[in-house]
């Protein structure tokens, strides 16, 4: 469009532009399916429905469920990092807290798993809120350091309080019970995690395409401009931090019941880094990028397991290559390519 427009901002083809714009405000069903919202949700649903046809054994289901659990965390983290432009290197801490709250409350106190999960989510939400106000006043490297510290402290507490958490050895977690049936085995977990992921993606898409979402993206673009437009930027940063922490906690609770065992490794620093890497690789500020990032980085290590000692080196090389050639991440880059392709064929 750029060369149809004079420097003054007036179009040479003013009429034509208005016409296309009017057309585009009323979306056809085909356009709806091509949009990130409609098309993305439809594709994700399709993948989720079709995927079980290719899952042949417990191990396959195990990987698929782990992809889903990671994707829930990363969709939330992408709201914070990709959209609002704030970094967190401590989200595995919230994931671990969710996991351990479910573990401790169900194993030691006999609480129902479906009660322990929201308690964990609420507890993490309150904690994240308390942490967020002082921490989110910081920015850049300082915010990274502060969130890293938060994650480390959570991890240390989990490791130290062995009487409650089993310490570094971890602890067993009872099975989750839904409507009187115990959730057990890959297929059942697959549908539970898939439904939760769909919910997370739907909420994330809703939020981004709303006044709150525009405020978040706006404060990322220019904090001062957002402020003078009436956005209480601190409040919004806190809000999105809490939302992403709660989503991590929910995923943690599911993970604890799914693997029936938790260890402090769920809350450790490298796990936090992995989540951030998933956001960046999949594509910042792309909800489906978050899902793809989680899928790729959960799958790759499985394929690379045969390379034993070189696994991490190869993983690192693949990531470097992607980031050099697709600095915006997988999904935004591929989406841009597809759009360009579609435009070329349209001409």
């Amino acid at each position, binding site marked *: 469009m750029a060369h149809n427009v004079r420097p003054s901002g007036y179009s040479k083809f003013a009429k034509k532009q*208005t016409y296309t714009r009017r057309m585009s405000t009323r979306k056809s069903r085909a356009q709806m399916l091509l949009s990130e919202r409609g098309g993305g949700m439809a594709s994700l649903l399709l993948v989720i429905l079709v995927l079980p046809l290719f899952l042949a054994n417990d191990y396959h289901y195990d990987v698929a469920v782990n992809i889903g659990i990671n994707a829930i965390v990363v969709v939330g983290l992408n709201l914070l990092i990709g959209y609002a432009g704030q970094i967190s290197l401590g989200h595995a801490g919230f994931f671990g807290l969710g996991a351990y709250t479910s573990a401790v409350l169900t194993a030691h106190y006999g609480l129902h798993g479906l009660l322990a999960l929201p308690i964990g989510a609420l507890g993490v939400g309150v904690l994240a809120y308390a942490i967020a106000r002082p921490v989110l006043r910081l920015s850049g490297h300082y915010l990274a350091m502060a969130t890293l510290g938060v994650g480390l402290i959570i991890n240390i507490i989990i490791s130290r309080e062995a009487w409650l958490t089993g310490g570094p050895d971890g602890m067993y977690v009872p099975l989750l019970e839904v409507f009187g049936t115990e959730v057990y085995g890959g297929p059942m977990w697959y549908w539970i995690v898939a439904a939760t992921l769909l919910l997370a993606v739907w909420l994330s898409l809703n939020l981004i395409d709303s*006044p709150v979402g*525009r405020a978040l993206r706006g404060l990322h*673009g220019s904090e001062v401009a957002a402020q*003078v*437009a009436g*956005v209480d930027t601190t409040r919004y940063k806190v809000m999105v931090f809490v939302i992403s922490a709660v989503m991590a906690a929910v995923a943690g609770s599911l993970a604890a019941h799914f693997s029936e065992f938790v260890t402090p490794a769920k809350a450790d620093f490298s796990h936090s880094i992995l989540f951030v890497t998933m956001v960046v690789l999949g594509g910042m500020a792309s909800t489906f990028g978050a899902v793809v990032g989680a899928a790729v980085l959960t799958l790759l290590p499985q394929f690379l397991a045969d390379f034993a000692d070189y696994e991490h080196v190869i993983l690192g090389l693949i990531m470097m290559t992607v980031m050099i050639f697709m600095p915006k991440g997988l999904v935004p880059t591929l989406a841009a390519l597809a759009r360009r392709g579609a435009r070329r064929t349209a001409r």
Partner: protein
Amino acid sequence: MSLLRVENLGIQFGGVRAIQSLDFVINPGTIHSIIGPNGAGKTTLFNIITGIYAPTAGDIYLDNVPITGRRPHELARMGMSRTFQNLQIMKTMTAIENVMVGRHLHLNRNLLSCLLRLPSVTRGDRQARKRCVELMESVGLGAYIDAEAGSMPYGALKRLEIARALAAEPKLLLLDEPAAGLNAAETKEIDEVIVKVARSGVTVVLVEHDMKLVMGISDHILVLDYGRKLAEGTPDEVRANPAVVAAYLGNVGNVGTVGTMGTVS
């Protein structure tokens, strides 16, 4: 009654007194221009009024309510809006999304409603979009509605700033050099936009170097020099003020952009 009252205002950055014992009043429904050479403290004054900087001395009243030290988003809620001399564009968003951020305070911002995409949210967004399209067309951005803000030319971004500020429907609008870097035709368009906005009842505070524009549309002019008030009054009074003439206006009678007032900072 005054809309904005500034009393004995001062701010210091380290040793630099960017604003010193400044008093002035802005009446509602007027175009009030602030002029002065680069570094006179005009942008700093805007930053204080809009709550971005806290002054080290003095008080500011909006509608007789003391607002000194209030934060920018609170002042936005009280009807203040502004543009930035050094563009503050949300570059990863589209042009209309930038303008819609400007409408923030008029929309349903309840978190739960937004998460669940309640009809009130989508309805509000649809109406907001329509309004913002009209607004963009009225400032000459009709061709840029869904353009990526990051890829728009400078002149269009200057207007985008104005559209975003107007979307808030402020009662006090502060424009920091809206015509800087624009050519004569573009400046004239901006000029028309400002007059149109002022006619609709919005009080406009304008910082501008283009003397023709300033003298043509202002009801009142405040001249700043080294953070102090050098003169104020109607355009004719300021033009005739010996201190102003002596300082830098020189031959304002036949106008144009006055050379000694320098370039964009």
